[in-house]
Every structure is written in C-alpha cells, then in structure tokens.
C-alpha cells in the first residue's frame, strides 16, 4: 500500500507547472500510480482554473483577427494514436512503467552493474541533476550515503528498506542532506526505483568515500 505521497504544496506547484522538470516528472509518475493523489490533483486543477479564469483582461482589437485566424484552421485529425506500452527490460525481467515514464524506457544509456547487486540506468532528461532507474537484486544495497541536495525516489516495483523505514511500490520518498541512509532490499523479486537527484551523492563510509572527489564525474 502506498503510504508516502508528495505533500499538498508539491502537488499544487506541480499542477501550476511551477516545479523543476525532473521533480514534475517524478510527481507525475507517482500520480499515475496513486489514485488518491490523482483525485487530489483533479480538485487542485479545478480550483486553480476557477481562480485563473475569474479575471479577464480588457477587450483587445487583436482578438478579432485572432478569432478569424483560428477559424481558418482545420480540425485535428482526431485519429487516435495507438498506444504501445513500452517495457523496461533488464536481464530477462520486464517492468511496466507508469504512463509518464513510458517514453523514457528506451532512452536509457544501458544498464551498468554496480557492486552491491545493483543495476543502474541513467535517463538523459537534459535536466540539471540526474535521473536514474535503479534495480536492487535481493540482498542488494547502496553504500551508506547522504545528499548534498535533494533525492526524490519513486518505488516502481517491489519494496526496500533504508534503515529508517520500509518502502512499498508507489511510495514517493524525499531525502535531503539531513539523512544518512543505506538502502537495501530483501524482497525476492528485488526492487526497481526511479530517482531524481539535484546534487551529487556524498558517500560517508568505507571504500565508497573514495568516490567523493569524483562525485562530480559520476554526476556529469
């Protein structure tokens, strides 16, 4: 069951189109998976529309020309584009992605196998920061780390724990520099997440500390 959702402020900014693109995308993916947030969003949009459409600007002579121009335009074809569901593939496994992320299933730059039974595929969104699909096999874990910025994670399939609590499919997780955590999974089917990171990770233990001087390189 989904327990963690974007807060009202985040949903409202999303509905207004005011969030950073990466943040907006992961919120959109959550609302694809979460009925509750989808309903909330519908209400927020109706309220925003009521406010935005309450005021009208003064009449403008340019409107007449605009109307005439628009009426010259043909109707859109109305032909439904057949919607082919794309799956994310990894090592013989297939994952169905939420609608918002579908288009990125084949825009990954290949999977990299990382130590700790981890697989990671970066998604090139052209945003500041980075976006990745990460798959943890059963018994997999990420070295303990904290964040310089904010990490948003959406659990797409399976469940995991980070030493702070457990997370289930659909959960929307926000982590910032206050948290030191060690994500791991014991689920048989492993766990697939999508995450957006606005600053490099800061590794805090063991050999992984070596990575800190290079986190900019990881991050490029």
């Amino acid at each position, binding site marked *: 069951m989904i327990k963690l959702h974007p807060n009202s402020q985040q949903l409202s900014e999303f509905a207004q189109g005011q969030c950073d693109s990466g943040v907006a995308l992961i919120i959109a993916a959550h609302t694809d998976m979460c009925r509750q947030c989808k309903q909330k969003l519908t209400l927020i949009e109706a309220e925003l529309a009521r406010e935005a459409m309450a005021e*009208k600007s003064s009449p403008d002579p340019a409107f007449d020309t605009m109307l005439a121009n*628009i009426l010259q*335009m043909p109707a859109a074809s109305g032909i439904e584009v057949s919607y082919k569901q794309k799956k994310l593939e990894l090592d013989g496994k297939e994952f169905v992605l939420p609608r918002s992320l579908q288009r990125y299933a084949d825009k990954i730059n290949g999977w990299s196998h990382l130590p700790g039974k981890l697989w990671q595929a970066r998604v090139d969104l052209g945003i500041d920061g980075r976006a990745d699909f990460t798959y943890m096999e059963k018994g997999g874990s990420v070295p303990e780390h904290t964040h310089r910025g904010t990490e948003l994670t959406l659990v797409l399939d399976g469940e995991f724990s980070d030493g702070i609590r457990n997370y289930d499919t659909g959960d929307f997780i926000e982590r910032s520099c206050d948290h030191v955590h060690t994500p791991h999974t014991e689920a048989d089917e492993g766990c697939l997440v999508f995450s957006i990171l606005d600053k490099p990770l800061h590794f805090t233990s063991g050999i992984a500390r070596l990575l800190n001087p290079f986190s900019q390189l990881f991050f490029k």
Partner: protein
Amino acid sequence: MLVGIQLETRQTQRPSGPEIANEMSTYLQTVASERCKASFAEIFHYFAPRVRSYALKQMKNEAQAMELVQETLANVWQKAHLFNAEKGSPSTWIFTIARNIRYDMLRKQQKRKEDICSEDMWPVLCEQTASDAEVSLDHQVTLEQVGQLFSGLPVKQKAVIEAIYVEGKSQQEVADELGIPLGTVKSRTRLALQRLREMLEKDD
C-alpha cells in the same frame, strides 16, 4: 436617438458558475460535432480575455502572452472532440491546456535542452509525441571502474589518497605519519586526483 448605442445587456447579465459551465460545454460539443463557428465564437469571447489575463501574469511580455492565448484557443477549436464534460468543466479543461502550452513555451525559451514535455506529465491533449531528441551515449563511471583506476596509481600517491579519502585522515596527519612535508602530501593528492581524472576522461 437610440441608434448607434450598443446594447450591453448580454454582457452584464452573463450567467455564472454551473450555468456558464453547462453553456460552454454545449458549445464545445457543437464545435466538436458540427465545427460550428458561431459556437466557437461564444467560447472565444468568453475565454480569450480570461486566458490572456492568466497569460499576462505568467509570461514575460505582451507578445508571448498573446501567443499563449492564440495557441490555447486554437487547440480548443481543433481538438474540441477531446473535451469530456464528465471529467471536468470547460474552464478547467481550457486552463490545463493553457498551463501545458505555457510550460512548453518556457521550456523552449530555456537555453538547456530538457527532454520533458507537458503531455508526458499532464495528458490533456493526448495526441502529441515529443520529438525524439538525440540521446548522447555518455560514459558511465562505476564503483568498479574507480577501484580499478585507483589500483593503477603510483604507490606513493595511492598511499596518500587512501589515508585521506578512505581512512578519513587530514593532510597534516598523513604528513606526520609518513614523515614528509605537508606540501608534498598536497602535491601528491593533487597529482593523484588529476591522474584519476585523466584516466576517466581517456576512458570516455
């Protein structure tokens, strides 16, 4: 004497709330089914000044605001068949179209190339497919690779890096421990990092 005086009664006694929503829904359905220009004109006269008021708050200048109004209302005319009264009111639908177009306009104005479009996130006019921007295959550096590169460093540089980045010692502590000047520790660190960086870049 009354000749030439415009009758404004229709304007001032405009219905509001649910009534206007019902009226506009009917117009939208007529536009969808019959391409009725008179119905569209009603929709246009009601919504264009409202979308413009929203656009003026959102866009940098008058011209962009008008572009947003034009794009929004053109979509209403061309895609009226996508309006579904069961899902929401006409003003919510038109607001969401304007919001999406605004988002895409601002995205295009930005210098950086973001490959996310409004319909990915807010499917209002589900016909659009984004242009397939070329995805560059950029190199992934993994923990394993860094480990390998690290083992390729000269022994003296490796010792310094290990003490500082793995054991967490300060440069002064390393200098004292190895019995070498602090300046040497600093230069070894710098050289080692530079070398690792070069190796990573050469790998690309």
